[in-house]
């Protein structure tokens, strides 16, 4: 360094450069020219050591004063420039936020399967185990094991879809073959009881089939869930409580319910549960205490165990959940319908 440190000159030049900076980069350069590695102030600082004691003290104080002034001016100008950038530059970078969002390709689960899962979840929460069985059944499991009378109309070709024998057993006089598309998920009740000792708490979801032409209220293939509980002391009040719990979980805690007598060959006493929906009673569940003949056929002693069974249609619940009035929509596989469930 040559001569004495020109504190006033450095301060003036630095403040002028800072004031003249048009953007943050220029400001950074102006600051570097003073306090950077090769800045004038840095050089002055470095040369302090060579000065005599009193001059060193005086010059040091001057350097510090300039540094403080520069720092203050730089911060003030930085704030100004950042404000300007925020105001101008970011504004220029604005994009149209109303353009469509970018999503992964859109898929959907079928409303019947989703409704069925929701129903299963409720019963799983009550401690039921989900079990399944084959869709092509023997009439022994589908009818005989469930106490269905020999002459019951459900056994005829008019009501059920029969399958040709796989081992060339000729059909009976009435055309039936002993093998059919199951008409209910109930045969899995029999399969379950024959396979394990009580207690049994199971829920059976699945597809079932009837000899029906598709229309707004009928399908040849539809879905059921059935519950079966057999234990030492289950009673009719347990049946009603379980059904009510299930119905309220599905339709809401304030749902009006009606429990009334009905008939099923595989239960006695039998009952149906109606729910008040859209201004009328809607049949929700068929149920009853498992018939002693069914227990006996499935290897349980009706004097030792007792229990209940219930079944409900999944399609009806899906119609209620989604405001659907025509069953055919569920099986037409029209993506304009199904994409609503994406």
């Amino acid at each position, binding site marked *: 360094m040559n001569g004495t440190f020109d504190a006033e000159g450095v301060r003036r030049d630095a403040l002028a450069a800072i004031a003249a900076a048009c953007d943050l980069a220029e400001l950074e350069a102006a600051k570097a020219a003073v306090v950077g590695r090769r800045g004038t102030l840095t050089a002055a600082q470095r040369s302090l050591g060579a000065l005599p004691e009193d001059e060193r003290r005086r010059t040091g104080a001057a350097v510090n004063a300039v540094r403080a002034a520069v720092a203050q001016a730089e911060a003030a100008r930085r704030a100004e420039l950042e404000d300007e950038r925020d105001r101008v530059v970011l504004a220029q970078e604005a994009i149209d936020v109303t353009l*469509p969002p*970018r999503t*992964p*390709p*859109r*898929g*959907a689960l079928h409303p019947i399967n989703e409704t069925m*899962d929701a129903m*299963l979840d409720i*019963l*799983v929460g009550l*401690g039921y*185990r*989900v*079990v*399944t069985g*084959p*869709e*092509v059944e*023997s009439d*022994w499991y589908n009818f005989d094991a469930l106490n269905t009378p020999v*002459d019951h109309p459900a056994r*005829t070709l008019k009501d059920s*879809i*029969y*399958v*040709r024998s*796989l081992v060339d057993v000729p059909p009976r006089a009435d055309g*039936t*073959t002993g*093998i059919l598309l199951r008409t209910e998920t109930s045969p899995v009740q029999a399969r379950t009881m024959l396979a394990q000792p009580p*207690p049994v*708490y199971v*829920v059976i979801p699945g597809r079932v089939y009837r000899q029906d032409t598709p229309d707004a209220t009928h399908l*040849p*293939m539809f879905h059921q869930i059935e519950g079966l*509980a057999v234990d030492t002391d*289950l*009673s*009719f*009040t*347990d049946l009603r409580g*379980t059904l009510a719990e299930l119905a309220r979980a599905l339709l809401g805690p304030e749902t009006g319910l*009606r*429990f*009334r*007598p*009905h*008939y099923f060959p595989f239960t*006695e*006493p039998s*009952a*149906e549960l109606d729910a008040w929906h859209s201004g009328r009673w809607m049949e929700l569940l068929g149920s009853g*205490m498992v018939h002693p003949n069914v227990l006996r056929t499935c290897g349980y002693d009706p004097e030792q165990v*007792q229990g209940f069974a219930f079944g409900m249609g999944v399609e009806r619940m899906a119609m209620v959940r989604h405001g659907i009035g025509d069953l055919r929509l*569920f099986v037409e*596989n*029209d*993506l304009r319908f*199904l994409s609503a469930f994406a």
Partner: protein
Amino acid sequence: MRVPLSWLHEFVDPGLSAEGLADVLTAGGLEVEAVERPTGGARGVTVVEVRSAAPVPGSDKLTLVQAFDGEREWEIVCGARNYQVGDKVPAALPGAVLPGPDPTRPVEIGRRKLMGIVSNGMLASARELGIGDDHRGIWILDRDAPIGADLTEWLDLDDAVLDIDVTPDRGYALSILGVARDVAALTGAELRVPETLAPDGDPGVPVVIDDAERCRRFDARRITGVRVGPSPAWLQRRLAAAGMRPISNIVDATNYAMLETGNPIHAYDVALLAGPRIEVRTASPGETLRTLDGVERELDSDDLVIADADGPVGLAGVMGGAGTEINDGTTDVLLEVANFSAATVLRTARRHGLHTEGSRRWERMVPPSSAPVAATVAAGLITRHAGGAVVGGTDHYPGRREPEAVRLRPARARSLLGLDLDTGAQQAALEAIGCTVNEGAAGELAVVPPAYRPDLLLEVDLYEEIVRIHGYGRVPETVPSSGAAGGRSPRDVARRAVRRALAGAGWTEVMPFPFVADADLAVLGLDAGDPRRTTVALVNPLSKEESVLRTTLLPGLLRAVRHNANRQTTDLAIFETGPAFLPPTPEEPGADGGPTGVVLPAEPLMLALAAAGAFEPARHDRPPRPVDLYDLLGAVEVVRRSVGGRTLEARPTDEPPYHPGRAARVLLDGVDVGVVGELHPRVVAAYEVPARTLAGELRLDRIVAEGVRHPVAAAPSPLPGLRFDVAVLVDEGVPAADVEAAVRAGAGDGLTELTLFDVFRGPQLGEGRKSLAYALRLDDPERQLSDVDEAAAIEAVARSVAARVDGRLRR
């Protein structure tokens, strides 16, 4: 069962509104589906007398009638001519209202001019009044109909009708009297049972019953001197309200008695009965019968028939014969009030496809006790309304059985019902429905059900009656605990995980029927020996075309693709999970068929996918991206991840129904799970799906066999790793998977990421060559990696690709 309230009130009247009674019955097991007023709607219709009738000049159809309403005569122009002077007929005078064809829009009647004559309203047919469907002419009312009376009041046209859905066990409720019994039991109201008259005197027609099992009782009553004509208006009105068409005073009487008592009745014209004699027997080979509906029927040797000396005159419990039918000239009537077994009627009705009001009741068990009750009602109506007198009758009752007591253990009933009902309360409930209850041994009760309840056979049947009379609505709600954690099987959990993952990745779940045609499988191009060509056939398919069960899910999915494409939805990606149905083999058996030894098909759980058009649709900033094989493989990769599978391997395959160069067999953790690919152009054409439709089918049962496996995760290295790229130059024919394997092997155990980021072909590489560029990441948790490690790794990769795929690194 349609129950007119006025009819019910003849036997019981609990003082409830129709709606209130409907609630009581529904709560008691007789579900009232609707409360209707089917004969209502007419207002201000008056009973008038025809004073004169003359043709309207200039018209060959119209008649001018002078009708007297008790105060004055009205001129009414009428199109029908079935009445005579002196007849009483219904007149809708100006201001009257008729129900009209649409019940929500009643029709007000005014004056109108016909052929220049002012008609003061109209004379009405039964149909125009909403009573039945008779529109052959003006409704001729009873001779003693009160002139000037309001028809609605006189005939109780506003009578409410309860439409009851009767369950198969409650056959008794297919009668007014049966419903009345339940009303009395459920409300405590008094039941008035009509007096029953036993038959008396020789009817002159011998009755022989061959089979006392099938025909347990036969009450025959003979009425002579009848005159066939219309029934009184009130009776016609009630039949119509109950849903039956009025025919004649004889036939209506039998139908009325059936509706009232539940016991079907048939009436024969004795003059047409050969013998005259009656035999109840099964049909002989070759016998035929022309039934009332005019159909000539060949009889089966299992059909129970009523025969006279010449042969069958009726199908027992189902329908009478045309040859002995009541007709306008009948004067001598024999009533058959029999008891047929449910099974015999059911079989005959089914065999002949003849389901009648009668057969419907027999099929639900009519008790023999009701025969004389019904006979009394029918004979009474006939003598009252058709003249004549009962000249004799016989009551054959070979199938009489002593009523059997059912044991009831009150403690067991309490346990099963969960109700604190003491023995007295249980006894009272059973007595309310007519049971006779006696004390048995050890606190048990011996319960003899009433004759009208043949359905009460077991102790549990009594439990239902006890709780029904107690009130289902009063049963408390308790929720039992299974005492165990519920849940889905690992397999079901995995299936759900797969479905949800696919839906999240852009695939939409569909639900086709599993019915296909053999031709659907043939056009897939499957070899004749392919197991999927051997189908499980249906006996009675919904349609002849689709008469077998699917062996693959592809036809259903491709039909769904076509269905959508035909509706302008051409960008789609769909999937389904569900069973295929295959004849069982030792390797793949079906489920156990039970003690009858039935062989069931194998039902492997499949996952099928199909896609066409753009997988990613066009956006303003991006063109549509057509679906290709890698989207299908991507779906398989999504499936792999959803079940926690470790590895996915794709191998080229040239099998149908796929494009021979664009299909891959996929292995999950080394297990062959199926094929995905672009469909062969021939299959595309046969199924009429969009060009370059892709599909695939996987064995979901194998994929979910172990459930969702939990991933095992290592802690990431705390030290910085290395990232670098390599480009591998290989021959065009080398599969990318082989190159990747070589790179992986060369990079060693420290490799934590490997991404193929570019595939390049160009003249500088040489003909038939390609360059695959990979980004790698190496990590070592033990030490910091350096440039030296990077160089060593690249050398190792270079050696590996040279050795394994004859490739070299581009540097």
